[in-house]
Structure formats: C-alpha cells, structure tokens
C-alpha cells in the first residue's frame, strides 16, 4: 500500500498542538506503518514537498511570512487541516489585534524590555491582525481545541487513512 504523506506546519501558535501530536503514545506505531512525515518541526526537511496528502497546520497567520507560507502549503497539499484554535479562530495570537503593530512592538521591545528601539529588519513583518487560516486559503477540515486532544488527532488521521469522514459534532469545542 502506498504510504500517506503527512506534513505539519507551525505558524503563530505556542507549539501545544504539536505537543498534542507527539503525545499520541503507542498509537504512533500503528500510524507510522501507514504514513511518512515529510515536513514539519518534527523532521528535518527544509523545503515543503510538492505532493503532500495531509497537512496539519498549527497557529494563526500573523506575519507576511505566515501568509506566503500558507499559500504554498495549500497549493501542495490535498487535505489541509487547521489544527487547534489559533489556526481555526486566531485565538490567543489575536489578543494583540486591538493594538497597532508599531505600538505593540514598541511596548514589547522598548517599554517593557528596557531596550532603546525595536529590532526592525530582524523581525518578521507582522500583519495588522492575526487571523485564522480560512481567511487566507481553503481549509478542508477544522479541528478546534486548545490544544485538540491527541486522541482526537489520532482519530481524525485514522479515519482519513480509512477513507472515512471524521464526525466532529459534540466531540470538539473551542478552548
């Protein structure tokens, strides 16, 4: 049987969703027989491959870099899954949305950090708002939760491998 190519992507999130993926314990043995992890923070690949079957994306789109990346990921992925509340709703990263970016950076780097100025060109260029993935690209499935449980992620991946559509009503919640 052809192995399914799985990628994971980490945008503006705390890595908690990736921890949830890692937390699947023994289930990884069963899954590993059927999938190859081809890209993501858990593996070494530098470039997002051309023909990924399933991609799990953690995090909101907060910078120009995130926005460019998610477009590329979409083009190269068959089933794109928004994993966790930051990807689904923009969640905690969006708590800065009420503050203009220049003021935000100034507060973080100059006021509260005691440094004189903001390290301009070394920072990724922030968008005016952190926004959910579906405002940038078409998302095939949303897995809310902060983080979504390991069990849920394993369940969804297993269903997809079996060619089934995961049933999420009553099983997921925001937060």
């Amino acid at each position: 049987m052809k192995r399914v190519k799985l990628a994971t992507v980490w945008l503006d999130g705390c890595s908690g969703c990736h921890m949830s993926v890692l937390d699947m314990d023994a289930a990884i043995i069963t899954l590993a027989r059927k999938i190859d992890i081809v890209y993501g923070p858990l593996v070494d690949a530098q470039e997002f491959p051309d023909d990924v079957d399933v991609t799990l994306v953690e995090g909101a789109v907060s910078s120009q870099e995130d926005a460019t990346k998610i477009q590329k990921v979409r083009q190269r992925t068959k089933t794109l899954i928004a994993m966790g509340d930051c990807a689904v709703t923009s969640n905690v990263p969006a708590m800065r949305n009420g503050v203009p970016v220049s003021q935000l950076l100034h507060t973080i780097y100059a006021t509260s950090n005691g440094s004189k100025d903001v390290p301009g060109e070394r920072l990724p260029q922030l968008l005016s708002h952190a926004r959910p993935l579906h405002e940038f690209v078409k998302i095939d499935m949303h897995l809310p939760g902060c983080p979504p449980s390991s069990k849920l992620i394993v369940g969804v991946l297993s269903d997809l491998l079996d060619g089934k559509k995961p049933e999420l009503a009553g099983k997921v919640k925001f937060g």
Partner: protein
Amino acid sequence: MPKKLQLRIDGEMVSALEGQTILQAARNSGKYIPTLCYLDGLTPVGGCRLCMVEVSGIDRLVPACTTPIQDGMSVSTTSAKLTRYRKIMLELLFIERNHICAVCVSNGHCELQAMASQMGITNVRFSYNYPKLSVDQSHSRYVLDHNRCILCTRCVRVCAELEGAHVWEVTSRGIHARVQSDLNQKWGESRGCTNCGKCVQACPTGALAEKGWAVEEMIKRNDNITVLAHRKGAGA
C-alpha cells in the same frame, strides 16, 4: 384554571395550557429546543433567536421562548433550514466580541461554547470583529468582561425581576450595545447593587464572573435561579 390546548410538536400530539409558550409546551413533553437567552424563571425576551421553530401556516420562523401556543398549532423544532440559521446565529455571536475560550474563566462550563460544540460548529465562517472592549473590575467580588458578553440580558432580568435591584440595563444600540450598571457607573460604585451575585450565576458565558477564579474555574449554578424564581412564583 387555564384551558388545555392541543398542538403537534414534530408530529406528536401534546397538550399544554393556554398562555404557555411553544418552548414550555415542548419542554414539558420532553422535546428539546436549543436556547441561550432563555432562563427558566425569568421573563423570556426572544433575544438570541436560537430557539426559532417552524409553525405550519406561518411563512416566517418564530422564537419558541416567546410565542404562545394556539389550539391545533403544528410546530417543527428541527429542519435543515433551522439548523443552518441556528449555526449562523451562534457564529455571529462569536465574531461580535472576543471569545478566546482557551483563556476564559468559563472555559468548559460556558453555554455558548457548549452550544457551538453540540451543533458541530468547528469554525466560524464570518470575519472576526476584534472589538476593543473594557473589563470592569471595580466591584469587590465580581468582574464584568464585555469581551465575553452575548447581550442575552439574563443579568438585567434576574437583577430586576428576582433581586428587585435593577442595577443592569443595556445601553446604546446595535454593535455598540453594552450592559451597564446603574447610570453607566462603574459596577463597584453602584449604589443599587446588593452584592447578591445572581447576575453572575445567571450569565451563560464568562462575561460575569466571581473574582479569584482562573481559566476554566468559574462554574455557575443557574439552576438555583430557576428554583428561587419558581418558589417566588416569578416569571412563567
């Protein structure tokens, strides 16, 4: 003694008393209609529109919590159309304010969050509004966080109808509407507030909470409000 009326709910014949609402008739016969602004014991206001149902012969949807039953009425509580509208209504509540469940005192105990989960809402299709809203921490025991308020007015009604203090009101209109205490004073400066906390218990979300609780810790007991209201014979 009110007259007994007969009606059909989802095809099943039930009887209820004249003057009762569709929601009351449904609940008394064990039928479920989703609600948010309704709280048993307080006067229904028909604000959230989640309880919308179809009535044969009427070409618009009606809120079950405020619509009185009529003899021979035939009501449908579920349909693809109702589900579609109910989901839209909930999603609009999520975009209107800042609902960041992961860091909310009511996470895991919130009626809005639970309703979204139950209805299978996995994401919100509309653009978030990200309004800049204040948090009133001036009261010694409670907090009001406008970021989480859905303007259900349960706080307004419980304070006026059960406590008799009428501290809460809704000020401004549309997207600018806010609950306010007394004449738009800080809650801590309200002379009407008796510190009873009924508004906190009645609030379906994390908008009103007791101080001192962290994320997920605020558990409310609005069943007590219902019991108290029925004891006093208030509401319906």
